[in-house]
């Protein structure tokens, strides 16, 4: 069997905006099926990392490789076809389109028919359309949204909108799925369901998943390993249990005073 390239390799990526260094020497190698969490206080550079990976901005320095191919500076739609899909921090669904249409558009990534086929309604076009519809229905049902297929995206309740965004991203057939704060705005029950969903997506589709999340329970619950950013710098990298106890991480989030309190609580816990 050939040596399959890692789905995603980020090597020493730095992002500069004018004089501002939003991301410094970011490194990450993801293997197929891995669940990685990316955390950090607000403004730490997490979404910037996502934007660098998905081609929204070309990295100022460093390399991004998808399945072994260097994708620096390629347009987002090309990178998507190569295998990176994402959701957005502020949901970016196609609001006036139905749930089904939202997913169908993603199915088209890499479709073979063009305008000509559509205008002449060729046989090839019709079978492609049927294929796309079938696939879209499948993704909707995986996310439990089949009953919403004809509903306009903007009419869906918030939790379902987030699920729809994930369904849409999945429909592009990615190797790596990047979820940007998927649990934002959810209640605890929904968050538990989400964690289950993320794991089952990984199991069912065999892809690598990168999650940005602020809710510690969620991200530590799904991640196999985690990276912590602060002011663009990676300050910690490891298993969730190690990250939880890492003083640098705690300091970045909560400052020195909390560290004192936590130290006391931890030692109390340790002595139990």
């Amino acid at each position, binding site marked *: 069997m050939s040596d399959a390239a890692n789905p995603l390799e980020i090597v020493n990526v730095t992002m500069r*905006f004018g004089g501002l260094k939003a991301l410094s020497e970011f490194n990450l190698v993801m293997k197929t099926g891995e669940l990685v969490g990316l955390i950090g206080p607000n403004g730490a550079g997490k*979404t910037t990392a996502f*934007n660098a990976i998905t081609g*929204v*901005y070309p990295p100022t320095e460093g390399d991004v490789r998808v399945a072994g191919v260097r994708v620096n500076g390629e347009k987002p739609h090309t990178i998507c076809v190569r295998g990176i899909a994402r959701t*957005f921090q502020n949901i970016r669904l196609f609001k006036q389109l139905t749930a089904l249409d939202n997913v169908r558009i993603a199915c088209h990534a890499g479709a073979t028919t063009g305008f000509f086929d559509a205008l002449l309604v060729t046989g090839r076009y019709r079978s492609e359309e049927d294929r796309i519809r079938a696939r879209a229905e499948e993704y909707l049902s995986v996310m439990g949204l089949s009953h919403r297929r004809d509903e306009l995206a903007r009419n869906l309740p918030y939790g379902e909108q987030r699920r729809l965004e994930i369904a849409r991203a999945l429909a592009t057939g990615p190797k790596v799925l990047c979820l940007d704060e998927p649990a934002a705005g959810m209640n605890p029950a929904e968050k538990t369901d989400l964690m289950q969903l993320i794991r089952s997506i990984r199991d069912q589709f065999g892809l690598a998943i990168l999650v940005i999340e602020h809710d510690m329970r969620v991200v530590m619950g799904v991640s196999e390993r985690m990276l912590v950013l602060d002011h663009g710098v990676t300050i910690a990298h490891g298993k969730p249990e190690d990250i939880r106890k890492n003083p640098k991480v705690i300091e970045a989030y909560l400052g020195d005073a909390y560290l004192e309190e936590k130290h006391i609580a931890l030692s109390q816990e340790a002595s139990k």
Partner: protein
Amino acid sequence: MTEFLQHLINGLSVGTIYALVALGYTMVYGVLKLINFAHGDVYMVGAFAGYYLAGTVTSEQATLGRASLITLASMLICGAVGYVIERFAYRPLRHRARLTALITAIGVSFLLEYGFQLDAIIKKPIEFPPGPSPRFFPVLLDLGDPFTFLDVTVPKFDVLAIAVAAALMVGLQLIVYRTRFGTAMRAVSFDSNVAGLMGIPVNRIISGTFVLGSMLAAAAGVINAGARHKIDPLFGLIPGLKAFVAAVLGGIGSVPGAMVGGLVLGLAEEFVVGYTASSYRDAIAFTILILVLLLKPQGILGRVTVEKV
């Protein structure tokens, strides 16, 4: 050499007009991110305001005082027009899609252009609307024979016009950079939401911006009409578009940019037309526009803004 100087002077003369009108575009774009299509027509309204005032204001003598009065009065009238346009056509659309406001702006522009082309409804003391035929703008100032030096002929009026335009621009610079209003205006142009949260009365600042821009356009209208003497309701159409190009050239949203852009455009037009004797005069502006937007969309003095995803 003579030719060069002649074109230079003409270019500056035309350029300052463009600059004055461009300032209105750029300031409004700065605070509202809207291209006020109707701005060129405010320039036209200014010219007509001057025309009507010159016809009705007391004495027949062409004096500096009278000319200044007419100019000032028409600036005030256009300021009011600008205020009304913003208040009733643009403010209700503040939170809608920008395209909606753009279409409305086109509507207002047409309303002015074609409204002015209707046959007169009011007959006395003035014939309003003026109708489609061009009107003769009276001589506001008789300054005597033109200057001549080095075989270059410069009408004295043009020199005065450039001086007045320059004075107005300096005045605007002072307002924008040295007064509280100006600072507030700049704050609103950076981020109107935050400016509002900081206690800046955003609506009033925006209204003020429109008033200011319209006043400058009016001045430009009167000055230009005073030099060329022929005005008609579509008189603001092409200069308006060109002034917009000037604003983009200089960097839309940048006040010094509008001035620079206006002068550069005026000079470019004069020199290209002068030396190639082409009939592509108007196309020059559009060509510059397209080149700027394709090559350096932020213009000469504009900032590059990165949109955050």
